[in-house]
C-alpha cells in the first residue's frame, strides 16, 4: 500500500524562552486510506508535530515526505501550493471567515488553487455541504450558524480540493458529545467511502480507540 505521509528523524527545538527539545527523532508513516490518531498528554508535542506535518511549521530538523516526495526545504510559496492541493486541515476551533457566507468559505481554498472554473467549484462545494447534511446553510453568513455546523463547514472546506490527507487538531475538542460523534462518523465515512487518509490529534480516548491506529506520544517521543 502506498504511503501518503512519512517522517524521518524529525527533531524540533523551541528556542524561546529556554531551549527545549519538543520532538525527538519522530519517524512514522501514514498509509493511503488509513485513519490514524495521535494521542498524548498536553505538552507531549503532538500538536507541534501536526503543524510540522501540515507544512505550516518549517523550523525543524529531519525529513518530511508527502506522497513519497521530499517536502522539507521547499520555499514557502511552493509549500502553500502543496498545502492547498494535498492537505486538508480541521482545527479545534472552526476558524471560518465570519464575514463570508458558508458557501464562500468552502469555496475559498479552491478559488485560490484556481484549477477549476467558478461553476465547478460552486458545484463541488455544494456537493461537499450536501454530503455533510448542511447544504441548506450554504447562503448563510458563517457567523450565524451553530458550533457543530461550523465544524462541519470547516470539514467541507478542508475537503474542497480533494486532498490526499485530512489532518485534524482536536477537531472534536470544542464540541458536545452529540456533535463529536457526528464528526467522527463523518471522518469514518470519508475513509470508507472516499478512501481518504486521516490523521487526527485528539485527547478523546473513545474517539482514538475507534480509529485504525493510535500513535501514542509522550515527552516528544512516539511510544507505539
Amino acid at each position, binding site marked *: 500500500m502506498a504511503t501518503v505521509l512519512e517522517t524521518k528523524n524529525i527533531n524540533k527545538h523551541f528556542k524561546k524562552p529556554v531551549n527545549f527539545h519538543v520532538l525527538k527523532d519522530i519517524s512514522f508513516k501514514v498509509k493511503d486510506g488509513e485513519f490514524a490518531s495521535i494521542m498524548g498528554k498536553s505538552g507531549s508535542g503532538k*500538536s507541534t508535530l501536526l*503543524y510540522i506535518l*501540515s507544512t*505550516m*511549521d518549517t523550523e525543524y530538523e529531519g525529513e518530511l515526505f508527502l506522497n513519497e516526495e521530499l517536502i522539507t526545504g521547499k520555499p*514557502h*510559496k511552493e509549500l*502553500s*501550493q502543496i*498545502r*492547498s*492541493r494535498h492537505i486538508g*486541515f480541521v*482545527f479545534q*476551533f472552526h*476558524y*471560518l*471567515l465570519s*464575514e*463570508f457566507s458558508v458557501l*464562500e468559505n468552502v469555496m*475559498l*481554498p479552491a*478559488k*485560490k*488553487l*484556481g484549477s477549476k472554473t467558478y461553476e465547478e467549484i460552486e458545484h463541488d462545494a455544494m456537493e461537499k455541504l450536501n454530503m455533510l447534511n448542511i447544504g441548506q446553510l450554504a447562503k448563510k453568513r458563517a457567523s450565524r450558524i451553530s458550533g457543530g455546523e461550523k465544524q462541519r463547514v470547516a470539514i467541507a*472546506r478542508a475537503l474542497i*480540493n480533494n486532498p490526499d490527507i485530512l489532518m485534524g*487538531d482536536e477537531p472534536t475538542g470544542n464540541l458536545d458529545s452529540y456533535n463529536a460523534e457526528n464528526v467522527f462518523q463523518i471522518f469514518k465515512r470519508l475513509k470508507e467511502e472516499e478512501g481518504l487518509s486521516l490523521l487526527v490529534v485528539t485527547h478523546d480516548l473513545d474517539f482514538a480507540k475507534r480509529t485504525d491506529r493510535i500513535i501514542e506520544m509522550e515527552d516528544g517521543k512516539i511510544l507505539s
Partner: protein
Amino acid sequence: MTNWNVILSIARTHLLTKMKSTVTASLGVTFGIGAYITLVSFMTGLNHMLDDLVLNQTPHIHMYNEIEPSAAQPVSLYEKFDGGLNKVHSIKPKQSQLKIHNALPILHYLKDQKSVKGATPQLRSQIFYLSGSIELGGNLVGVDIMEEVRLSNIQDNIVEGSPEALRNTENGILLGSGLAKKMSLNVGNRVQISTIKGTVFPLKIVGIYQSGIAEIDNVQSFANLKTVQRILGEPENYITDINIKLYDLAKAGPMARLLEKQFKIKATDINEANAQFETGSNIRNIITYAVSITLLIVAGFGIYNILSMLIYEKMKDIAILKATGFSGKDVQLIFMSQAMIIGVAGGVFGLIIGFFLSRIIDNIPFETEALPTISTFPVNYNPGYYVIGIVFALISTFIAGYLPSNKARKIDPVRIIRGT
C-alpha cells in the same frame, strides 16, 4: 500564481463588512486631498493674480536714459594728475538728453531679434492737468497703443472706453482713474493739459485707465505717441523709453546686460525691478506646499492606523487563509488592495470635493479698488495639481498600506492558531 479575482473579492468583502472603518479611512484621504486641491488652487490663484498685477505692468526689459553723473570725471582723464588723490566736490549729473539716441534703429534691431516678442516705444513727459485754475502735476505717456495691447495687459486696465478708440482719435487720452475722479471727468469730456513749457492742449477723453495702484492712477495717462511728440514739439524719433517683451522671461537678465553694452544705455530687466516681489511669491509657494504636504501626511497616518487595526482584528482570518493555501504574498496583496482601493476612492472623491470647493471660492465676490478686473477670488484650475493630488494619495496609501500588510505577510499561522 496570483489569483486576483479571489484576492479582490476578499478585499471587497473586508471593506464592505467594515464599512465604518472603510469610510473613515477614505474620508481621511478625501479631506487631505480635497483640502490640498482647494488650498493649492486658491493660493496659486492668488499668487498668479499678484504676479500678474505687478509683473505684467513691468516690461521684461526696460531701456531708458538714466540721469546720472559720469562715472569718470574729467580730472581722472588728465594724465598729469594720474596717481594723485583727486577729489571733486558737488558733482552734477552729466548733461544729456532724455531721449534715447537712435531710438528708431534700435527698435528695428530689436524687432528683428528672434527671442523678442515685441518692442514698444514710449515717450514719458511731465505735464500738468488743468482743471479751472487748479493744476495737477502728472505724466503723459505716449504709446503705440495697439502694440501695448498685444504685449501687455493694458487692455484689462482700461475700465471704460477701448484701446481702439484711442488709436482712432488723434487727440484722445486714456485718463488715469484717480485723475478722472479728482477732476470729475468722464469719457467724452475734454481735459486741458499744459506742458512744462506752458503750451496748453485740449485732449478728448476716450477711456479711463485704472491699474489698481493708486500712485499711478493719480498721475498717469496715456495718449498716442505722435500726439505727445506733437504736444512737446519734438520730432518723430523722440522716444524716451523702450519696453521689450521676450518669449522667454529667463533670458531677460543676460539680454539686458548685452543691450546696455551694445547701445550704451540703461536697461533693467524684470528680475532686477521686482527682486523683493519674487522672494514674496517664493515664500508663499513654500507655505502652500508645506501645508499641503502636512495634510497629506496626516491622511496617510489615518490610513496606516485603520489598516493596522483591521489587520489586528483579522489576525485569525489571516492565519486561516495561510493554513488553507494562501501564501504570505497573497495575504499582503489582499491588504494592499484594500489600501489602494481606499486610496483611489478617497483620492478621487478628494479631487471632486477640492474642485467643488474651488468652484465655491471662485464664486465668492472679491471686489477691491486695487484690482479692477477681478470680481471674485482668483482660483487656479491647473490640472497638474489634480495629478499631483491623486498621485500623492496613491503613494501615501501605498506606504500606509505596505507597512501593516507586510506585517500580515509575516504572520506565523501556527502561532495564531495555537494561541501562543
